[in-house]
């Protein structure tokens, strides 16, 4: 986009975008470390993730402050206005993703060493998928690429599908042996965290669509997470 007559206005907008790029990079790193710490049961790494979350929060506040100041000073219109509104929303989604990464890392402490590898595999796979989604959506945002954003938006279905199967799988383990319940519950929350990260990525995708096209995305996203209605039937006996 061409430049403003007032150069410092461009600087304001560039600064916001730079802060968000920084925030995005940090959140990506946090998520990567959180998944690693959980997979390798590396509590030292987990603690680092927990500590670093504060940096994400600080960046979010900085984006917000800069955005409010820019609104007050420039009275942005049209695309500039959307740019700023979307920046605030993206910052808030990234902050939430950071929280979910932190929460996942925290659970490392509750993992015992005897955890069967195959139990971990599903959650790790979800984590990797969520990472790809996050990376792509950050790319889409930094290039204001609405098509790429929509691809991410659609791809979130895969993460939902994986979550459904992991949910089922973990329930089965818990039923097999009640000693698995504590671990499986933590893993279930971990998986849920990854699923939520995917949802935040689709939020960002919707905002990129609005930023570029000036209209909110009309249709609702097909939500494929069906676990909220899932029931467990003990011993195969019907509950009816």
């Amino acid at each position, binding site marked *: 986009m061409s*430049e*403003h007559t007032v150069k410092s206005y461009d600087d304001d907008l560039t600064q916001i975008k730079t802060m968000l790029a920084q925030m995005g990079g940090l959140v990506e790193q946090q998520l990567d470390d959180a998944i690693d710490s959980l997979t390798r049961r590396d509590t030292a790494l987990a603690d680092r993730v927990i500590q670093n979350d504060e940096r994400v929060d600080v960046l979010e506040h900085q984006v917000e402050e800069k955005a409010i100041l820019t609104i007050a000073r420039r009275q942005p*219109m*049209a695309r500039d*206005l*959307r740019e700023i509104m979307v920046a605030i929303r993206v910052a808030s989604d990234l902050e939430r993703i950071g929280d979910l990464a932190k929460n996942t890392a925290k659970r490392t402490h509750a993992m015992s060493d005897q955890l069967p590898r195959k139990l971990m595999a599903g959650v790790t796979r979800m984590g990797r998928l969520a990472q790809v989604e996050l990376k792509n959506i950050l790319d889409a945002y930094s290039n204001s690429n609405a098509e790429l954003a929509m691809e991410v938006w659609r791809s979130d279905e895969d993460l939902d599908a994986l979550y459904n199967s992991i949910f089922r799988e973990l329930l089965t383990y818990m039923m097999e042996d009640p000693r698995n319940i504590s671990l499986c519950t933590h893993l279930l929350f971990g998986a849920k965290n990854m699923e939520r990260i995917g949802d935040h990525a689709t939020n960002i995708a919707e905002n990129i669509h609005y930023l570029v096209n000036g209209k909110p995305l009309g249709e609702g996203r097909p939500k494929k997470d069906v676990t909220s209605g899932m029931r467990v039937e003990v011993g195969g006996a019907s509950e009816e």
Partner: protein
Amino acid sequence: MNAPTAPFQTYITPPHPRALSNGKFKITASGVDVHYGEKHAIKNLSIDIPDRAVSAFIGPSGCGKSTFLRAINRMNDTIPGCRVTGDIEVDKHDIYDPKIDVVQLRAKVGMVFQKPNPFPKSIYENVAYGPRIHGLAKDKTELDQIVEQSLRKAGLWEEVKDRLAQPGTGLSGGQQQRLCIARAIAVNPEVILMDEPCSALDPIATAKIEELIDELRQNYCIVIVTHSMQQAARVSQLTAFFHLGTLVEYGDTDEMFTAPQEKRTQDYITGRFG
């Protein structure tokens, strides 16, 4: 909508502007050209303006927005070398019809200017002058009534009712501008044209005028030319963006300032214009 069809085009972004809820266009213009001698100030302009709504004209200096505004009540007639061609209709009547009475037209299509220009007479006389020459009041009592009503509608009555005999020029800038609006209202206009009515006023006087505009739109078709994008966004329901004598985009104000269709509109309202 009843826009003129080809060969003219009316650039209303939404096919049915929201401000057209009562379904009536007050002013329709099609294929309008305005020349000042050699200068081609307005080029093949077509626009439909709804009744009982505020339409704002924005655009850089020299884009033709004031020229077009003045064409709506034939104010350009007074400028030597100015030629207007094409159709401009108010209530489906061609206002450039040679048979039309221009004085009557200007009563029906009133105008408020950038600098408040009260007559060097009393506050009362400023408002009473128009109704008197148009014979709208049969006696003094009726004239008093018209003066009071007009000043009330212009939100000035409470401030001036005890000093109607004092000169209008003694009022503050904002009060003078409201006096000019009262003067325009006094002759029962249907359309009020405003050419940057707040550019000489402080923010508080501006807010009072904007509040007044918002009330007046219940009863009038209002067209306002403004250089303040924020003002256009605040007071209008429709916004028209002019550039180099053409109408670039015309649509619902809400959309013009959040997601305009044309790149030139976007560049202008975001402050990127060259």
